């Protein structure tokens, strides 16, 4: 008998589908209450740093150049107070096979799938990760399906996503494209069920561990070249894997003093599952529409437990405007000679502003670039924005309204990194724990888990729980 493929029926089989498609027994790591053994999961399911470096280097991934952006640093210093203006460096992750840091995640996932004997891999992504999985699958001789949220109801798609379709197909993958909506994950599950392929999710322990090599390399390269650890590493934040993996890699390299910041494009006001809003965006990732929900509740992915948990690692979260990111993308090309991004330049944009708060002898590392191509470029994205009724102008960036305008700064001094209140994010996380688990009482184990998740002491967590009517046993 054919399986019932309705939305409800597929979702009711989710647990078994995921288990067969990953062979990770997540139950093994669950505590009695709300928590789970995060480090235990990362240790048991992940790979060691040496193993990962070897797997990656054999597959065109890693050892990417660390480039000093001397002209952008000089430009930032023109707007900084005397003595301020940190040295800005960028890790040229576009040099990885498939053109982005996502190859680090895909290389470990696809290696793992091959080792377990799967015939193919499936990933649900409209971003660079699809290209990364397709490229790594090609190297390993595995079949690959990429599921994309691509079009609105009129079959109009963002040029950036259309380019991702092309590159995935170039690497021999089958691309399944959908209109807007969270049911993408149901289609993803259905394909896993039909094919028996491996779920190369972005959020597995090996996917996140794969990014640890990035943080590790940064620490090593800084020490070799500059004789010290970086002061700040800044990551574009969406699902959280980039920041989590990088921070863990820095810690594994012993760079305890390095601060890790996240940066998102401010898309407040746009609904991520809205057919009308879908093509009002000018970047498909690195924005608050993904970043904030994942910060305050990581376990919303296609894995029972998300290995990307940013509040454990993030020292600061800032937002920038879309017009500012386009401006800095152009600056990177014409002042530094690197045509990269644009979405990956979110953290670079924040770095340009943040460098102006830091001392001149401090080191600020932007930890990624991504390849640029037709569609995936400022010009077609601005063209697309205009076609969708977005007004483009010069002005004060804070006047930009997501979905209505793109405001280019009148001069680079107007570019800002706006702090997102992490205290608020931590409190939202606790609120989500209480609501999603219907908590009325918390055990010591629950309290300890929340302390680790948000890096706060016991008193803080207990007070927050009590405020929400939860008694602590």
């Amino acid at each position, binding site marked *: 008998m054919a399986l019932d493929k309705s939305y409800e029926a597929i979702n009711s089989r989710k647990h078994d589908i995921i288990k067969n498609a990953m062979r990770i027994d997540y139950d093994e790591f669950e505590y009695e209450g709300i928590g789970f053994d995060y480090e235990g999961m990362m240790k048991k399911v992940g790979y060691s740093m040496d193993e990962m470096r070897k797997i990656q280097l054999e597959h065109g991934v890693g050892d990417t150049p660390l480039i000093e952006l001397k002209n952008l640093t000089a430009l930032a210093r*023109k707007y900084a107070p005397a003595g301020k203006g940190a040295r800005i460096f960028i890790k040229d992750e576009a040099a990885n096979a498939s053109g982005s840091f996502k190859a680090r995640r895909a290389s470990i996932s696809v290696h793992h799938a091959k080792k377990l004997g799967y015939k193919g891999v499936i990933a649900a992504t409209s971003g660079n990760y699809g290209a990364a999985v397709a490229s790594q699958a090609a190297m390993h001789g595995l079949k690959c399906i990429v599921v994309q949220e691509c079009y609105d109801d009129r079959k109009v798609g963002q*040029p950036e996503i*259309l380019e991702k379709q092309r590159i995935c197909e170039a690497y021999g993958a089958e691309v399944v494209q*959908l209109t807007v909506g969270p049911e993408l994950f149901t289609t993803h599950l259905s394909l896993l069920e039909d094919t028996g392929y491996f779920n190369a999710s972005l959020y597995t322990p090996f996917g996140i561990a794969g990014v640890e090599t990035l943080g590790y390399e940064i620490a090593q390269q800084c020490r070799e070249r500059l004789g010290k650890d970086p002061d700040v590493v800044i990551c574009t934040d969406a699902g959280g894997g980039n920041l989590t993996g990088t921070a863990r890699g820095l810690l594994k390299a012993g760079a305890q003093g390095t601060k890790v910041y996240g940066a998102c494009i401010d898309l407040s006001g746009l609904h991520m599952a809205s*057919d009308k809003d879908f093509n009002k965006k000018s970047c498909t990732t690195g924005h608050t529409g993904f970043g904030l929900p994942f910060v305050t509740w990581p376990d919303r992915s296609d894995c029972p437990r998300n290995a990307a948990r940013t509040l454990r690692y993030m020292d600061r979260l800032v937002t920038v405007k879309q017009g500012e990111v386009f401006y800095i993308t152009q600056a990177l090309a014409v002042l530094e000679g690197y045509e990269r991004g644009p979405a990956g330049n979110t953290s670079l944009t924040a770095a340009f502003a943040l460098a102006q708060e830091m001392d001149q002898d401090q080191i600020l590392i932007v930890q990624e670039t991504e390849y640029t191509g037709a569609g995936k470029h400022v010009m077609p994205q601005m063209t697309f924005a205009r076609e969708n009724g977005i007004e483009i102008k010069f002005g004060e960036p804070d006047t930009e309204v997501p979905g209505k305008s793109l405001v*280019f700064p009148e001069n680079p001094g107007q570019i800002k990194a706006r702090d997102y209140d992490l205290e608020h994010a931590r409190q939202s996380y606790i609120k989500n724990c209480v609501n999603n688990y219907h908590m009325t009482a918390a055990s010591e184990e629950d309290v300890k888990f929340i302390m680790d998740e948000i890096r706060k002491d016991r008193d803080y967590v207990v007070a927050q729980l009590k405020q929400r009517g939860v008694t602590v046993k």
Partner: protein
Amino acid sequence: MKTAKKGDWVQIEEIVLPAGHRAPQVPEDTQKCDLKLWVKGVLQADAELGDEVEIKTVTGRTAKGTLCEINPRYVHDYGNFQPELLQVELQLKEILFGGDE
């Protein structure tokens, strides 16, 4: 060309969830739309645009749907010239290098 031959590279469209049967959390405007799916593959029998057809994808999977494109091309490009980008370029060079001199 409106007719495709068996063995042609084509794209099909399929309705996965009809409007009104979308996930409950989907916003109102999206609820009014079908969840549609497109995939490419090798056509299994001669057909015309709009026909219900069967294809074999590059992973060897069989998929069924409405024939919507024959030899589909990529439509994305580098877009139109954007004057703001030129203005940014000239401004940055002026600030950092002092223009033509």
